[in-house]
């Protein structure tokens, strides 16, 4: 297996009295796609947010390229420039045009020259078939288009890995396909991704590993064929039974 990019070891996270993550361990290798499944409230989003330091971790360790992110000398802003995060609700910036949404990070966080990034951004938009919408504002786009722009916005940072938090859950069923197709393309191109999702067929097709999170515990992790075909744990079987 290739180099480990992100590793979580025995991660605990508490909100007040409620322990959302109870000792989760997970490794993400370069070019690997891991799908994270589990019911709402099982801790998927929190796990993703702990990985890019949007949430602080209460116990355990998170490492990026072998460096502990819990080290006090770590700059969270630098960490986040290497980790893309895409949200369920897109969170595009409504006051900026599509192209400016994409340019914001590279220009104002990475301080890269505007013209150079602009050319790259247009190429990315070309790839998702939205180059002609570059100057429009997000509210003029459909949900599926907005989410694809949000994914491109993360990609423009050239991150080492991409975290995707139920990116199709807020979409009209007819628009889910175009977003999943984009993710399939990215997976084929070797993008490292940790994907929280409810789309089981997608997970089966695309994931190298599928991990099942239940009430803050990582119950089972395995290759899709084994995971969906012959789940080891009773809790996994019960969950798969329910979503089928």
């Amino acid at each position, binding site marked *: 297996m290739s180099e480990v990019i992100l590793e979580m070891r025995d991660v605990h996270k508490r909100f007040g009295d409620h322990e959302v993550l109870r000792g989760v361990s997970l490794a993400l290798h370069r070019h690997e796609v891991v799908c994270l499944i589990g019911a709402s409230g099982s801790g998927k989003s929190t796990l993703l947010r702990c990985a*890019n330091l949007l949430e602080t971790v209460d116990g355990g360790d998170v490492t990026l390229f072998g460096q502990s992110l819990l080290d006090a000398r770590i700059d969270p802003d630098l960490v986040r420039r290497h*980790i893309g995060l895409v949200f369920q609700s897109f969170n595009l910036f*409504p*006051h900026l045009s599509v192209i400016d949404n994409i340019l*914001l*990070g590279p220009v*104002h*966080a990475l301080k890269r020259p505007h013209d150079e990034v602009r050319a790259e951004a247009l190429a990315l938009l070309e790839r998702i078939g939205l180059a002609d919408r570059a100057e429009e504002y997000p509210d003029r786009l459909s949900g599926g288009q907005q989410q694809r722009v*949000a994914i491109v916005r*993360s990609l423009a940072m050239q991150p080492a890995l991409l975290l995707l938090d139920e990116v199709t859950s807020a979409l009209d069923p007819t628009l889910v396909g175009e977003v999943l197709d984009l993710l399939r393309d990215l997976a084929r191109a070797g993008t490292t991704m940790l994907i929280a999702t409810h789309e089981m067929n997608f997970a089966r097709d695309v994931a190298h590993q599928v991990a099942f999170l239940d009430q803050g515990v990582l119950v089972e992790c395995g290759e899709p064929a084994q995971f969906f075909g012959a789940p080891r744990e009773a809790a996994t079987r019960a969950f798969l039974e329910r979503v089928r």
Partner: protein
Amino acid sequence: MTRPTGEPSSDAPHLFLTRRRLLFAGRRGVVASTLSSVVLVGALVAVFFLAPGGAAVRHFFFNPQDMWQSFVGDPAKGLSSVGRGLITNVWMFLLCEVLILLFGLGVAWTRLSQSPVLLPFRVLATIYTDVFRGIPFLLVIFMVGFGIPALGLHVISTQSPAVYGCVALTITYTAYVAEVFRAGIFSVHSGQLLAARSLGLTHAATMRRVILPQAVRTVIPPLLNDFISLQKDTALVSLLGVVEVVRAAGIYGSTEFNYSGYTVASLLFLALTVPMTRFTDRLIARDRARRLVGVS
């Protein structure tokens, strides 16, 4: 089985206006509103003309000749022009509005800053907004206008009363406007902050590029509201002896024993604030329409 149209079936629910509301239905509604307006205005005018002191009030407050006289002023009699006084009010509030916007944003920014170095400034900013929103403006004017000159400091204590008036207005209104800005910043959806920080933007860059541009848009109507009341409060600077609209009207009143100058002053303030209130209302309506369309 067919029934002729227009004839209700026996079990049809009752769908008709009550007889009383039928009185105002359709065109009769226009007649009713016209009639009620005429009656109301007529009653007010009648009170004005028929009241025992009506004639005196008309003479002391609404004498066209005195109104004109006070408006243009008469240097020979030592009468300042109320119209000229308005210029003082206008430059005061224009200057103050610029300062208030800058300082208000600064105070709001400080209160929301995260750097540990800025902790004392955060505390100060909080105390400042609490204190100056709590003290009546009248008292702030006295404290600044009479207190600072009394300190006997070089330059600082030797400014004109108009300058102290502007200082007092800026101090008080900055406290309000800072809170308006802060509320606007909080009104921006938290997803925007998360998205910007996830791109690796610093706190400052996130505020400047993502949060503030959106906050300012929502904050414009309440901000204009504060500016309308600021425009009126420039009148209180007259307490420091600045000859602006109200002071000029007061001089006319005490010299000529006629208060029509105050009426002129009121009309001049209305001429300033009414366009502003109409404009604010239009902005609010436009903003509402945009939100109702469902732009989240």
